[in-house]
């Protein structure tokens, strides 16, 4: 018999639609403006912290919707963004800098749904407000710094090997080494080639050996400069009190920083541009630390906090090697499987280290990390006041004499090694970054955008529903059910895909899909009408209508999907957002317009004796 849908297909439809509806449902619960409090390394969150927070809120006359305390962090849910702003400020002041107080939009999803992995759609910055920075790493200075290191390295290497050169010069794309005669040049060429396999050596006339980087090495150097900057920016973003910051590489030399909910861009920029350095210093073992703690700090030494033990360290003021000498620092494991950090210094730093270690075997050496943190105050020029913060991040005993290559072992965990390597790299920023794009959306505009977008979707949707019902009657009703399910499915899938964010152009994409999704049904229904006009029976008309419209729908949708795919591949930002919703919309509309409507049509009319169709 014609127009029968097998039972499994009904189940499939119900299953797919049900899944999407389930995952779309968290969006119904909305989000709360919240303040999220977490502790940094040397603090814990407990009942007393909770009391403090509650007291602060009461003092500021803010009534919180809910104050949750679990997973070692406190979440204060508030009614609006204004009280969120004030609450964050007050709590931050009262708790001090050992706590990270961040503004957040906390989904109000019920627990059972959360347990199933149900989360609302992530909103783009244009909808929730925030700052977007696009930063470009200054590759010119990154390369210049590498060439500078090469110059020093070659000088030392050639001298050690007793190969006489006239001069080593840094040029725009590498290094030139000048020699007095051909023999020495050949010798140097052979020696350096073996030593530096990732460099390209070419002999120029006039006894000049020209050294450039191989493509591979160039790429590595560039990648390294970008990675290093990302590490540093991530560290600094934490100071800003943003709950879900994004710091990502984009293209070969760019970094995207997205800070949702941030309002003071000037502060954000200043903090992101602040510098951090580090120093290797000798630990003062001649004097007693306890005496120093009690106030008798010897001249030439100073007390600095050390997070790992909680006890301050007494360090000599003289610096052994500055952080700018660090070329690379990587965490790994040594031959015993213990975590370690391998460090390389440039030639100058290597020489300084050699000088020091020659006379200091068996003595402890410390790494001091220097950061510039804002005090939150502003000076006369309205610039943020930055305060130098010094802290010891590592203390290690010198086991032997070394120069530019060494390892720090005896670390507690791979995580500690990883963190130390990150900090060491952060202290030696080789390439500065520049903001080349900045976009800010205030929370008020974000909310306005959401409201307007929702209104457009609702009205457009209602208009189409009415039109279809009037034009295609009962079949129009079927198409409307499919269209509604389509909307639910788009929202459900958008919520399920972790990387998908809904932006204003994305909302426009949804509206457009609503308009275009009915196209498949229009095609089918017009076909059915034609078949009836040709004198076929209603059942046959339905059957042929669906069959012959199918290939048309498929072709039309595949080509539109192609366009969406190209937009996704080439576009950035808003274009990407639009293309994601467009592509998802095409897939779901094919499913709802063909499979879902067919199932409903078959269940309604299939196998019945019909003389007329309500179409």
């Amino acid at each position, binding site marked *: 018999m014609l127009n029968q849908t097998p039972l499994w297909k009904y189940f499939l439809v119900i299953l797919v639609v049900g899944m999407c509806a389930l995952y779309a449902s968290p969006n119904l619960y909305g989000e709360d403006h919240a303040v999220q409090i977490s502790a940094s390394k040397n603090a814990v969150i407990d009942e007393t912290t909770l009391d403090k927070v509650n007291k602060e809120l009461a003092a500021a006359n803010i009534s919180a919707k809910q104050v949750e305390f679990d997973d070692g962090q406190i979440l204060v849910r508030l009614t609006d963004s204004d009280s969120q702003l004030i609450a964050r400020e007050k709590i931050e002041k009262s708790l001090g800098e050992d706590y990270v107080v961040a503004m957040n939009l906390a989904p109000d999803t019920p627990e059972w749904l959360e347990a199933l992995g149900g989360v609302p759609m992530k909103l783009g910055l244009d909808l929730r407000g925030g700052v977007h920075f696009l930063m470009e790493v200054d590759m010119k200075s990154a390369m210049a710094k590498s060439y500078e290191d090469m110059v020093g390295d070659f000088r030392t290497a050639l001298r050690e090997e007793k190969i006489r050169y006239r001069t080593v010069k840094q040029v725009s794309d590498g290094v030139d080494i000048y020699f007095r005669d051909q023999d020495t040049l050949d010798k140097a060429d052979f020696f350096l080639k073996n030593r530096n396999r990732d460099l390209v050596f070419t002999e120029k006339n006039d006894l000049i050996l020209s050294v450039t980087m191989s493509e591979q090495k160039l790429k590595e150097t560039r990648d390294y400069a970008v990675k290093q900057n990302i590490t540093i920016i991530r560290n600094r973003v934490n100071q800003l009190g943003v709950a879900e910051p994004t710091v990502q590489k984009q293209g070969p030399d760019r970094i995207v920083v997205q800070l949702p909910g941030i309002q003071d*861009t000037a502060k954000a*920029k200043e903090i992101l541009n602040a510098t951090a350095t580090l120093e290797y210093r000798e630990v003062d073992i001649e004097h007693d630390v306890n005496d120093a703690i009690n106030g008798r700090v010897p001249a030439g030494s100073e007390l600095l906090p050390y997070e790992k033990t909680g006890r301050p360290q007494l360090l000599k003021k003289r610096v052994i090697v500055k952080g700018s000498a660090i070329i690379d620092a990587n965490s790994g494991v040594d031959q015993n499987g213990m975590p370690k950090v391998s460090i390389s210094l440039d030639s100058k730093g290597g020489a300084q280290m050699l000088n020091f270690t020659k006379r200091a075997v068996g003595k402890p050496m410390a790494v001091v990390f220097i950061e510039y943190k804002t005090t939150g105050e502003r000076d006369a020029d309205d610039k943020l006041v930055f305060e130098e913060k010094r802290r010891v991040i590592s203390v290690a005993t010198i086991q032997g004499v070394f120069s530019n290559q060494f390892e720090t072992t005896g670390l507690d965990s791979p995580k500690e090694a990883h963190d130390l390597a990150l900090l060491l790299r952060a202290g030696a920023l080789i390439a500065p970054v520049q903001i080349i794009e900045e976009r800010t959306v205030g929370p008020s505009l974000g909310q306005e955008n959401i409201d307007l977008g929702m209104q*457009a979707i609702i009205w457009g949707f209602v208009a189409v529903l009415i039109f279809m019902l009037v034009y295609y009657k009962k079949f129009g009703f079927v198409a409307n059910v499919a269209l509604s399910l389509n909307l639910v499915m788009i929202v459900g899938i958008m919520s399920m895909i972790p990387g998908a964010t809904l932006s204003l152009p994305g909302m426009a994409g949804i509206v*457009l899909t609503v308009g275009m999704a009915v196209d498949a049904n229009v095609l089918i229904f*017009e076909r059915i009408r034609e078949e009836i006009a040709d004198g076929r029976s209603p059942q046959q008309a339905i059957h042929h209508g669906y069959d012959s419209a199918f290939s048309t729908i498929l072709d039309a949708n595949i080509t539109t999907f*192609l366009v969406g795919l*190209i*937009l996704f591949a080439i*576009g950035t930002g808003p*274009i990407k957002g639009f293309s994601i919703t467009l592509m998802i919309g095409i897939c779901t509309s094919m499913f709802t317009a063909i499979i879902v409507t067919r199932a409903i049509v078959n269940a309604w009319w299939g196998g019945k004796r019909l003389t007329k169709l309500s179409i």
Partner: protein
Amino acid sequence: MQILNMKEVVAFMSLKKTAAALSILLILGSIASLAVNQLNWGLDFTGGTQIEVGYQQAADLEVIRKQLEASDFKDAVVQNFGSSQDVLIRLASREGVKPSELGDAALKVLREADATAEMRGSSYVSSSVGEELTEQGGLAMLVALLCILIYVALRFEWRFALGSVAALTHDVIITLGLFSVFQLEFDLTVLAAVLAVIGYSLNDTIVVCDRIRENFRKIRKGEPEEIINTSLTQTLNRTIVTSLTTILVLLALFFLGGATIHGFATALLFGVVIGTYSSIYVASLVALTLGISKEDLMPTEIEKEGADQDAVV
């Protein structure tokens, strides 16, 4: 209910000369306007400046907008920023004025009205980013057209492929022409809209091409022109209904979507109208002019093994 109840085949192709003339006129007009007026590129493409202004008291955004508008800062977007005292103003860049000076000029205007206004910071989109975006957008369009050309050529026939790409190019140029003639701001969302127009118009064109192919195979007698007329008549209802529903939602976007999405809705509304026209006239006209015939669209027969032998029992 039916919008058009057609018993007779509409002789669309009898108007082919008028249609061709109209299309060529529109395209030439658009190109001329694009060459002379160019596009009114938005901040996304030109790069530009954005300033943050702080007031002592809560700022009235309407008043600020008026102040700026009176001083020729036409496209300034004014919004609250952080608190009600802080105002963020985005200025479209103006030729001959440095981005930094533009911000100062706008601030001066605001200061004349309210002396307490102070610059709290300024930000910008660098022109290199804008240039890249322009390149990227152009590239996206070209790649999209090329992919469509290949897909349609493989799935249908090269004449249809050229026809659809001609129709899409036609739509894109004329939509850009509209933005150029009326000097509407062309920003990133408008670019997305133009690309969506490609998608929409293509959808339409494929439906028509599909029907033409089907009819070439089904109808034994008939000149190509008659068959195309029949196909266009048969799909006319669908074309109108789909355009109508799409236009309905676009109208909702246009009137309710807010300023940010206004350009997007304008481009798509116009694009849908043009796209509907082009799928009727441009694509099929190009295919017809290129000499599409029955033989080109017959499915390639697959020779079955043993088909020419007598059946053996």
